[in-house]
């Protein structure tokens, strides 16, 4: 009898365990979504033209009974998106409800309710432990069926998100194979989602990156009011407080740790609250060490700015500060810095441009810079490269302009034969009116009534001159020759 029972236990138990695993996966695959996208980008170099249409795929998963979560880069510039789940035979069209380019996440919703029949909604877990196992589920290239890869969590660190190239948040590094097509798919541990697959190591080794659930939760919280506001910026630069001489110079008591503020950015959360040489002692009650870290939990120290990363627009930040011999409590609301937008790759919006006498003007953007580099341009460059990299750092706007506008391309016509000299320079003013931004530029053009149009460019003392009436005439020819759309703003 005992022998029989023992045999039964040895046989049945493993079978029971095995079927639990399979049934777990059966459930999981009901929540993972295959995404098919047709996208059409905007041509930054010829912004009056449309570009080719590209088909691509990605993965998503159900985060609520109606919301499909995926990466922003899967659906950027999309014109038509369809989704399909396990064992479905139809492809279902979706709408993009929310996109967050600053953390590479997006929410889709199927137009037809039958898409959601017999589905599984994932629960978000926490941040997985180092060395713990995870499975990444999705629809990578190389096949049409769902696929699973396994790996362990190798590292957790603040790092740049490739989609915008400027934002950095927590990233979970795993050694599971993540391939194009996997983007947007869930990384699962104990049946819960612990990350969203979104990036692969550039050298194609077995290294993949996941967006942690803290970022996902931040995104979901933000969109509750129907609008995605975006990540906030503290807007300061700091330096460690190790140096004994500098501490003495600033008369800092030995027992104080923290980091020194070296710069406060215009438009940042700290503007008007923190000052240069403030010693930041605590953030939200957590002591800041001399190297700028706080004890996030007993085992992990993180950079204090990561605390700010988790705050929503309007949420208070609490600092304890040592300033001129006194310890102060300073609090202020976290805010998003729109000033950084120009440094992000742009998606889903056309590039704003203006053509004057064949000179093409556009706001300086990362997309334009990247295209410029690809074209192997040789003239100029160091002016706008510097200004792009240091616009906020060096406060180049001085509060007087919103963006740099550059003359980056010339559509040849006899009227602009003398303008070669000014190619790739930043436009400063038109008829002595400093240009604030693209719409201001158009307003100035609309109102021009002098005989001459005088364009002054940065770092060149002598202006470029046009005859206004000649320009109005020439533009008709230029539009015809280059097959340009007619601009609403015109030189009279």
């Amino acid at each position, binding site marked *: 009898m005992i022998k029989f029972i023992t045999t039964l236990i040895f046989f049945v138990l493993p079978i029971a365990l095995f079927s639990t695993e399979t049934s777990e996966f059966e459930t999981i695959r009901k929540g993972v979504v295959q995404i098919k996208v047709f996208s059409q980008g905007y041509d930054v170099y010829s912004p009056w033209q449309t570009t080719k249409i590209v088909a691509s795929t990605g993965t998503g998963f159900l985060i609520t009974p109606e919301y499909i979560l995926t990466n922003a880069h899967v659906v950027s510039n999309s014109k038509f998106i369809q989704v399909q789940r396990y064992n479905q035979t139809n492809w279902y069209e979706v709408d993009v409800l929310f996109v967050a380019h600053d953390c590479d996440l997006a929410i889709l919703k199927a137009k037809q309710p039958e898409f959601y029949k017999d589905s599984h909604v994932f629960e978000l877990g926490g941040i997985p432990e180092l060395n713990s196992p995870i499975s990444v589920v999705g629809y990578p290239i190389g096949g049409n069926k769902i696929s699973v890869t396994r790996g362990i969590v190798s590292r957790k660190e603040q790092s740049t998100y490739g989609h915008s190239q400027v934002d950095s948040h927590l990233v979970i590094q795993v050694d599971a194979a993540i391939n194009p097509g996997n983007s947007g798919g869930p990384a699962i541990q104990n049946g819960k989602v612990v990350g969203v697959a979104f990036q692969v190591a550039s050298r194609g080794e077995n290294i993949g990156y996941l967006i942690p659930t803290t970022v996902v939760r931040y995104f979901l919280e933000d969109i509750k009011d129907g609008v995605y506001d975006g990540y906030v910026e503290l807007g300061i*630069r700091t*330096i*460690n*407080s*190790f*140096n*004994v*001489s*500098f501490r*003495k*110079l*600033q008369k800092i008591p030995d027992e104080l740790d923290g980091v020194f503020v*070296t*710069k406060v950015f215009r438009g940042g959360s700290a503007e008007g609250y923190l000052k*240069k*040489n403030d010693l930041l002692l605590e953030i939200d009650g957590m002591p800041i060490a001399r190297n700028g870290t706080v004890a996030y939990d007993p085992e992990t120290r993180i950079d204090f700015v990561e605390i700010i990363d988790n705050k929503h627009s309007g949420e208070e930040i609490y600092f304890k500060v040592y300033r001129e011999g006194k310890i102060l409590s300073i609090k202020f609301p976290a805010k998003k810095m729109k000033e950084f937008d120009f440094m992000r790759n742009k998606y889903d919006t056309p590039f704003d441009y203006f053509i004057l006498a064949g000179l093409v003007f556009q706001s300086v953007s990362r997309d334009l810079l990247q295209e410029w580099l690809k074209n192997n341009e040789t003239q100029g460059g*160091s*002016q706008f*490269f*510097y*200004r*792009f*990299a*240091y616009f906020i*750092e*060096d406060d180049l706007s001085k509060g007087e302009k919103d963006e740099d506008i550059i003359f980056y391309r010339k559509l040849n016509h006899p*009227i602009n*034969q*003398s303008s070669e*000299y000014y190619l790739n320079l930043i436009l400063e003013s038109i008829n002595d009116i400093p240009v604030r931004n693209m719409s201001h530029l158009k307003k100035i053009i609309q109102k021009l009534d002098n005989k*001459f149009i*005088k364009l002054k460019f940065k*770092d*060149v*003392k*002598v202006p470029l*001159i*046009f*005859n206004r009436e*000649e320009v109005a005439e020439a533009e008709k020819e230029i539009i015809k020759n280059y097959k340009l759309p007619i601009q609403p703003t015109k030189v009279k």
Partner: protein
Amino acid sequence: MIRLCLGIFFFLYSFVFANSKSDTLQSSLLEVKVTTQAPNFQFPWIIKKPILQEGVGVYVGKEQILVLANLIEYATSIEVIKYSSNISEPAKLQKIDFEANLAILTVNNKKFFQDLKPAKFEDKVKLDTEVTICQLDQTQTLQTAKARISGMDMDQYPLSHIELPYLNIVSNEKLEGKGEIISLDGKIFGIVYKFLSNKNLARGIPSFIVNQFLEYEQKGSAFPFMGFQYRPVIDQATKDYYGLKKEGVLVTEIIPYSGAEKVLQLEDIILEAGEFTLDALGRFQHPDLEYGKQALSFLLHSGKEIGYTKGDKIKLKILRNQKEMTVNLPLKAFPYKAIAIPYGHNFGKNPEYTILGGFIFTELSEFLLKEWGTNWRSRVDKKLLYLLDYKKFHEPKQSGKILVLVQVLPDDSNNGYHNLSMEILKSVNGKTVKSIKELEKIIFQSKEDFAALELENEITIAIELKNLSQINERISQKFNIPKLSSRR
């Protein structure tokens, strides 16, 4: 029969005669061997490895040997070898003109010159002709190559700040660009200073430039600098805007401390220079028809043959505020004081630097940025590149240099700053500092306890002055730095 013999005779004679013309040149040429040790601008207490270079010297009489200046820049030892012996004779620098890329060497042993024939450089060059490029080879024999002068243009020579005329040379053979002479029938039209192997093109310093250099006996360069930049005026809109009814060029930039500073203004239009009218591109008709039209800079920088020498004044007819007027432009030396970021040449001097408490400070220069290798333009910090391209010259009344913290030699005293690199120094104790000399003066003469050095990125470095000598000593020992300053 006699006619045939005479024919053969003359044929052979001209053949021999032609050769002997070249042979004559051989007795004017020398091989120059130079050991160069360039400074390291990034780690300014280090001198780079010695490099051995070879080039051509030309005996020009009066115990003077002409060489290219860029051949002997930073030379620690120079030797010359003449055609008649393979013994190298030590040579030393007698005179150098960085703007003309030319220098004179001499030799102590006066007997050395006895069998050398002085070469004569022609006053006029031929601009469209086949030529022979000559130098001595390793065995001190005359080596020649065929080439062609295809024209003359204006540009800065290596090391130069002033654009001067250069000969465009086309050659299918490999040239060196180390001072070989350009000759035709025994006449010397110039020396080769650059060779672009992938394009079969070379450049030469014209003989009349060499002569101007040889004749000049005062200090500094033989060549003046116009002191302004100009742009052609070719479109009607610009002409109407300035009220220009003739042809001329627009003044777009005036260099401080130059001859032009007190005489010209931005947006002046230059119509005539001297007795010459300018066309829309700023060219004038050279009195020597062979030279055709030449740029305004030719007249103002190298117009000695036409009667405009350094030190003279040239009358310019200009259009200013829609009215014609005349001004006198003094042809002065290049205003080195106007340079904020040195480029071209450093007068053969080693970089200025000082290491204070492990912080290495030096002057921002193109030479410093070029230490980043062939692709330095894409490797250096964007801000420094921008400054070099657009802020090389000062605004009027400004002067001095820009100081850069290159690197920090780590020590406990400068803990926390070890990652700083290539940052511009904004001020010391609140005061702007324009030279290494000034920086050292403030630090070493300060009565304060601390020196606060603020960088342009707003990080402040604090140096406790009473410990400074100790720290300096420690760093000097640890990193084997013989001299902590270029000034001491």
